[in-house]
């Protein structure tokens, strides 16, 4: 368990947070730019000292009252937005910089593992000047992993990269958590990254924690200042449930629903994560047997909220253990007389497989 409660006056606002994160999996610190995410992360790392606060990671007290553990005595790893590699050292020495400062008994992650997990073997003898932006960031991740942290903090590590480089690093970050078992706190203002990586989401706004919870619950809530418009959608977790080889389709099962989609080539039972955008879901009072939409899910209306444009509303429906968001016109909502508790069919036009 990672617990933090911190108060820090900061010009425009006061950082005032109290949160508890699971010490497994990826937690995302999500919110608009300037909401205090980076300041909070710096406080957790010990790079910034909140005058009042308490930080406890897996039973280790990093800050409490007047007691303050300096950053170099914390079992923390930090990956900054720009990779901040040491320019006077080659890649291998960068990765080993922190590792060699650990007592042998503290080296729970070997140097070889840190290098293998980030795929930087071919870069080891290079100078840092000869690396691309994506390579630099992978080296920075390996360097932070090699200190065997209890908590790995990542401050928008993809922000300075182009789409191709992001696509190269995201899978590496996904693998990390599974391979290393280290709790990751990932700071981002990009919902797509959060949807893809996070198991747990902490939503921040103006220096405060607005909401926190599992990604599936949190992103489907209509009462939060989540990014509206095209990005509204939910994240579902499940497994490959069936394959239709002749038609190259796979059925992805999540609690309470199943979706047929293009066969991603994954074996039966493989764990998957799906993103279903509100714009791809419509509602119907009855199943539509004569439709090309094969993914029709029986569900119950949970709540209705205004969307960005006055012509539309967002409807949250529950299907078993999963929640979906649907975007429908206000006129349709009225015509169907949608109201909480009502049985509907969610017609899902497409789902995006995230991993």
């Amino acid at each position: 368990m990672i617990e933090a409660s911190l108060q820090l006056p900061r010009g425009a606002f006061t950082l005032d947070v109290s949160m508890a994160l699971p010490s497994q999996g990826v937690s995302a610190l999500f919110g608009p730019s300037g909401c205090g995410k980076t300041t909070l992360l710096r406080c957790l790392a010990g790079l910034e000292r909140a005058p009042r606060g308490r930080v406890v990671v897996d039973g280790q007290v990093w800050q409490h009252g007047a007691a303050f553990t300096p950053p170099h005595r914390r079992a923390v790893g930090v990956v900054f937005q720009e990779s901040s590699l040491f320019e006077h050292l080659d890649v291998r020495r960068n990765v080993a910089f922190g590792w060699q400062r650990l007592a042998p008994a503290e080296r729970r992650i070997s140097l070889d593992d840190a290098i293998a997990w980030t795929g930087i073997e071919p870069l080891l003898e290079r100078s840092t000047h000869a690396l691309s932006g994506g390579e630099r960031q992978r080296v920075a991740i390996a360097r932070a992993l090699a200190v065997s942290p209890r908590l790995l903090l990542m401050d928008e590590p993809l922000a300075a990269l182009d789409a191709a480089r992001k696509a190269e690093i995201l899978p590496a970050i996904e693998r990390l958590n599974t391979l290393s078992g280290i709790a990751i706190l990932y700071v981002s203002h990009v919902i797509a990254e959060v949807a893809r990586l996070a198991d747990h989401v902490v939503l921040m706004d103006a220096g405060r924690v607005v909401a926190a919870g599992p990604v599936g619950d949190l992103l489907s809530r209509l009462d939060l200042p989540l990014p509206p418009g095209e990005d509204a959608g939910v994240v579902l977790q499940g497994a490959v449930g069936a394959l239709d080889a002749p038609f190259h389709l796979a059925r992805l099962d999540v609690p309470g629903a199943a979706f047929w989609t293009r066969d991603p080539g994954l074996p039966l039972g493989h764990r998957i994560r799906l993103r279903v955008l509100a714009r791809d879901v419509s509602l119907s009072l009855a199943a539509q047997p004569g439709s090309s939409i094969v993914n029709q899910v029986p569900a119950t209306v949970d709540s209705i909220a205004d969307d960005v444009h006055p012509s539309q509303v967002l409807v949250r429906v529950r299907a078993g253990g999963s929640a979906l968001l649907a975007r429908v016109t206000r006129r349709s909502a009225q015509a169907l007389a949608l109201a909480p508790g009502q049985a509907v069919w969610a017609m899902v036009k497409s789902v995006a497989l995230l991993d």
Partner: protein
Amino acid sequence: MDADWAADLQAVTLTLELAALVTVLLLAGGMPLAWWLARTTSRWKAPLSAVVALPLVLPPTVLGFYLLMLMGPHGIVGQATQALGLGLLPFTFTGLVIASMLYSMPFVVQPLQAAFEAVGARPMEAAATLRAGPWERFVHVALPLARRGIVTAAVLGFAHTVGEFGVVLMIGGNIPGATRVISTQLYNHVEAFEYAAAHRLAALLLLFSFAVLLWVYWRRPHGSASIVAAPDARPRA
């Protein structure tokens, strides 16, 4: 002629000893000062920077005069050194070393400060999260990243000390083997109308100074006009 050569050689040797000692002492003392100036937000930063830069604009005679007063028999420093049994410092090699350190200080502290500023806070923070304590961060991150600036500081401090004259005359006089450096020896030659000997020393100093400056400018980043600009201040990816 042989006596001339011997006297010149003695002056050259003394100058090199003085410059080497001053450079080493200034690097040792200037480094903490430059580090502090590079990182502080204290209101004392501006006054202290101005004091460090004073020798750049003051006539060396002014500096030498005040040092003579301070270290003389009636000055605070002079009375202290006498009380400690060290005697008086003016017209000694030690006095010359102290005066030269003050005189050459900006040429060492300013490049060091620029180099430390160019290192920035981020590599130090990264090192802190990689288990490096304050001293390790300074030795293994700040110093290597600032190394070009440190070399520049040493070379400029050395060269500037070699070339000093006014302060030497005021504080050191002209004592062979103790305070007679190249520039005062050159002055002696001219006073005695020994122009050939004067040429020899003058040309030596000219070539030495030009070579030093040429080297400094060669290794400076493009587009920087200041001699003390950090050679490390290149854009980072």
